[in-house]
């Protein structure tokens, strides 16, 4: 890998992100300040923060699980959020106490619940791969329950559920953006302050514990950080995959190092760039496309490229 100056890479990312954001804001031609402040600006800011949060989550998960394709999506956190949203939107109409909950609130509860289950079992499982398999299975269970719920629901509630699960950066209000920002800040603080633990765990649990680190503690920290960030993003934007997988790889390729002190801030920027870029593409179509679909269509080829180019992964 070729080493490049982190400072210059950060600058390049910032300029690229600013250009993408400007293009996204300007798309659709000149308009009045109302549309700008209440429609376009919140959408772009949401895309930036969602991308940053998912990239940071993916970066941490890939390190603590030592799996280059790990991200919150695979660990079942997004599926947990979807289950929460499904319970409220698909069952909400019939039972009284559930109808008061919004889709976002339910999704956050669902994400936190599946995160809590993962956190709880992460103390039991000492192997990273077992934990990954557990996450995948947890996602399967959530999806199975969702499909049962869908089968028994009426068309109207199905439509509400689908519009959330398709994913979107629009429709966020400024208070929701503030909540996402707080989650991003907290998650980043946890991740960045634990950067040397994330570095050492790459060399295996045995080596890490022999050197005086506590692998289970490092994993717990990283999962907590992921849960806070993914929970908030999934609640407001729907389950968005693939950003968390790709962004850390782009950051690594740019800096030429695997050190988290360098890569966490850069992953944050590359993640933001991917989401703003995807949003720009989805806005270019005559009717705005769902964000999750756009991300999958643009993101999966990149993952396949990574797999082909680096078969050792």
């Amino acid at each position, binding site marked *: *890998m070729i080493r490049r100056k982190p400072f210059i890479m950060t600058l390049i990312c910032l300029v690229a992100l600013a250009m993408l954001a400007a293009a996204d804001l300007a798309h659709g031609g000149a308009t009045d300040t109302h549309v700008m402040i209440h429609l376009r600006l919140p959408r772009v800011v949401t895309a930036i923060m969602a991308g940053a949060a998912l990239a940071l989550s993916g970066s941490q998960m890939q390190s603590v699980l*030592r799996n280059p394709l790990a991200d919150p999506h695979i660990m079942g956190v997004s599926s947990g959020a979807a289950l929460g949203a499904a319970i409220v939107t698909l069952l909400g109409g019939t039972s009284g106490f559930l109808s008061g909950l919004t889709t976002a609130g339910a999704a956050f509860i669902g994400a936190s619940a599946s995160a809590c289950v993962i956190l709880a079992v992460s103390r039991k499982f000492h192997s990273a791969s077992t934990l990954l398999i557990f996450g995948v299975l947890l996602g399967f269970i959530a999806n199975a329950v969702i499909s049962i719920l869908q089968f028994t629901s009426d068309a109207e509630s199905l439509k509400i559920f689908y519009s959330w699960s398709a994913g979107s950066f629009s429709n966020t209000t400024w208070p929701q953006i503030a909540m996402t920002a707080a989650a991003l800040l907290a998650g980043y603080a946890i991740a960045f*302050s634990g*950067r*040397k633990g994330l*570095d*050492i765990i*790459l*060399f*295996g649990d*045995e*080596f*890490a514990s*022999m*050197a*005086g*680190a506590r692998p289970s503690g490092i994993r717990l920290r990283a999962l907590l950080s992921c849960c806070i960030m993914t929970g908030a993003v999934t609640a407001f934007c729907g389950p968005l995959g693939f950003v968390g997988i790709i962004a850390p790889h782009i950051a*690594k390729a740019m800096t*030429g*190092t*695997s*050190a988290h*002190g360098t890569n966490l801030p850069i992953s944050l920027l590359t993640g933001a760039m991917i989401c703003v870029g995807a949003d720009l593409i989805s806005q270019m179509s005559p009717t705005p496309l769902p964000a999750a679909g756009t991300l999958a269509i643009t993101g999966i080829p990149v993952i396949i490229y990574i797999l082909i180019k680096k078969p050792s992964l």
Partner: protein
Amino acid sequence: MSKILIQATDMTIGYRDKVLYDGVSFDIKEGDCIMLCGANGSGKTTLLNALSKIRSCETVMIPTRIPKVTGFTAKEFIRIACFRQSDMGGRLSKADEKAIDTALDTLGISHLADRDISTLSDGEFQKTAIASAIVRRASVILLDEPTAFLDAENRISVLRTLRTLCDTHGTAILFSTHDLYDGKAVCTKVFALGADRRFRCATQDFDECVGTIFRKF
């Protein structure tokens, strides 16, 4: 008389529900280069693990097969390994940074300092791991099969390095290995986990001691 670093008297090795060896007695002195031999599953790693828990700050264990993660230089790897010494951002003090250079020099791998560890040979990486133990100021270094995946040339080179380290730095080294012939040539002591479930320690007549790991009594 060199200082005794670890003294075991009538120690029992094993797991909670299974005793592997009891009545184990030995001492590890400054400058000892000890070969630990035994058949597969005889408990070599268990013994090393047990010893690594004693005075864990001064005893450094290097496990077998550390993954060579892409994206770290040899120097960065050593910095990461010094987990206890580094600050929150993984930075080391000036004295420790100097210790890294000295350690790389001692092991004759200064030219590898800025190479990515994924491009190092297994022997070179093994030496880098040993260098990290020196920077961690280990008085006892435990190595679990340091020669397991090496070719003949690297094997002898790594073993010679170990011996040199013992002679010049007074570090005590205990390494487990299946390469009995090469190991015997460099060590000053032999610990043998016998086929009869008895622990033996020899400072001379290595062949006799090593033979007990095969013989059924």
